[in-house]
């Protein structure tokens, strides 16, 4: 009875079925742990871990230079850029826009920098559903290799004040 003190001697050996279940459960837990490590070495998708501190002003000026150097057009006032494959590319999160619009080449690798100029945001790349938390003051460096041509939508999935639902962006893979 769970609500009364147990019998004096309650440390008894496990029954057969309990032993079986505990063993199977423990094996499954260890499997999941080794899966994490295995994927780290074998898988193509891993948690990005490169980041460095940066002031929002510094980040803004880096991103502005990047846009100026690679701009190829504009959509509704948001610049479109087409950077060289293999280079460092910059995405800015701010209330309430992802900017610029990035044009990337399929199967090429880029170092994507993302940082916020104000509060925290959530980078959500759709429809592949990759999601990352974005801070101000941290330059997050993410190595990406798009594997399918098409239009990718960006939206924000961290509450970033009253216009949160207005915050969108775009990546085009050609």
């Amino acid at each position, binding site marked *: 009875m769970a609500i009364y003190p147990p019998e004096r001697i309650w440390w008894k050996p496990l029954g057969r079925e309990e032993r079986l279940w505990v063993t199977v*459960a423990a094996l499954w837990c260890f499997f999941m742990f080794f899966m994490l490590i295995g994927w780290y070495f074998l898988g193509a998708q891993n948690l990005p871990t490169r980041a460095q501190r940066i002031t929002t002003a510094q980040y803004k000026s880096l991103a502005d230079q990047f846009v100026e150097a690679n701009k190829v057009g504009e959509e509704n006032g948001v610049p479109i850029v087409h950077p060289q494959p293999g280079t460092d590319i910059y995405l800015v999160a701010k209330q309430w826009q992802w900017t610029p619009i990035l044009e990337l080449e399929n199967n090429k690798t880029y170092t994507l920098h993302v940082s916020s100029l104000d509060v925290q945001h959530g980078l959500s790349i*759709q429809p592949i559903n990759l999601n990352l938390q974005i801070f101000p003051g941290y330059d997050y460096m993410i190595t990406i290799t798009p594997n399918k041509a098409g239009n990718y939508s960006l939206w924000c999935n961290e509450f970033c004040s009253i216009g949160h*639902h207005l915050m969108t962006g775009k990546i085009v893979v050609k």
Partner: protein
Amino acid sequence: MAAIALPNTFSGTRSVFRVCPVTTFKVDLAAERLIIVNAVTAIVALLLGGIYALLIGLTRWPDVHLLSAPWFYRLLTAHGMNMLVFWMVFFEVAGLYFGGNALLNARLVGVKLAWVAYALMLGGAILVNVIIMMGRADVMFSAYPPLKADPLFYVGYILFAVGAILACCIFLATLVMAKVEGRYEGSMPLAVFGLLTAAIIALFTLLSGAVALIPTLLWSLGIGNVDPGAYRVTFWGFGHSAQQVNLSAMIAIWYTLATLTVGAKPVNEKLSRFAFFLYILFINLGSMHHLLTDPGLGTAAKFFNTSYAMYLAVLGSLIHAFSIPAAIETAMRKKGYNKGLFGWLLNAPWKEPGFSALMFSLFIFGFIGGPTGVVLGAGQLSLLAHNTWRITGHFHATVVGGTTLAFMGFAYYVLPLVFRRPLFAKKIAQWQPWVYGIGLIILSISMTLAGTLGAPRRHWDVTFSNVTIPVQVQPLMNLMLTFSGIGAVIAATGGAMFIIVAVGSLLFSPKRDPKALSPLEA
């Protein structure tokens, strides 16, 4: 009705007890009053949170889209605070006083301090609610800086946490005193052991909350700065570990309900206690899984904290997942329901609200909330789910369909005992776990599926109607959002049924034995 006064060993005072006619436990009247006020306050928070739940649920139903954007975000903040923090913790404090006093026949240590703890918690909760409704804290319950709220919001949060820390200390002191005064024989009951686990984790949790919120309060007053990453580490040391408090309390209640409804006895006390012990050791590290996609943390830190240690905590949960149904099955088979594999389950007392609440809670937590959590916590997989509605779907199957429903089932037993009034509207109570449980199954599954299709959490307009850069939304997402709206309405109905029964019992049921109220007459 007998009330007895027992002298206390260390102070000259006397505590006044009554003997519960139903359970024969000796109940300290001072503890009983605190159980009642904490439980009633919890239910008021649940009522507020539930009204907001319906309104935000109807807003996220695309064809209804009820509230304006500012009110949606405001009430979402209020929903998170009232449900996750105030309802849960007030009810848990009531549960601690019940477990530490009634179940052990013990007296409450530090009655005055317990009232101070209650006053701090109540004051904090009222302050937070008022500031949110004034529109000065539209920041969500997580309040990530540099999004800033009114300083009084953080003040309220901190007051509440301090009060809760105090309540946990009182519970621990009560346990020690019960042992010293020999109020129970041998080891403490398993349910109390589970509550002890919850209280130990709670102390760590609440301290972590204070570490997160005090610098934030200073920053909101213009003193110093808060690093967004450091805030998230300490905040989730509070926010996630609080879920482990809820988990431990829920499991303690599962064992209790299994005993009360079918007379189940833990199959192996050693194993169940070991599983609780795994929680104490390892589960705090799980808070790191909120930070997997953050910049600034290394791979090794992420993997150790989320996986290695956390999977040992998962092992603890898998053990309970076996022990509890096994205890129920054993008890039912002993009663002669031996037919086939599941005869014991089919013949169980499904009309008993305590039992159906237990089973829905076990099922929703065990088959939806738990498995989705194991998947979400797996390092790289977090990339697929972080901040999507999958997260919201996951925890509406853990803390809402699991813990809250278990608490409701427990309330059906405890409220009549402490109010000393029979349950009001038993017919409603009988159906309540079914309505609430089914609503939550629909709600959490459709939230999860919508999130799998990319639906963001905390979001007023997933049709993206007024954006500068148009985006493409997967067509099925709308359907899932509609289902979630329907689930929300059903679940909110179930929540309202609980409130009717609980409040009705207090206000409209006849008092069982008016004499028992006054200990002096005994």
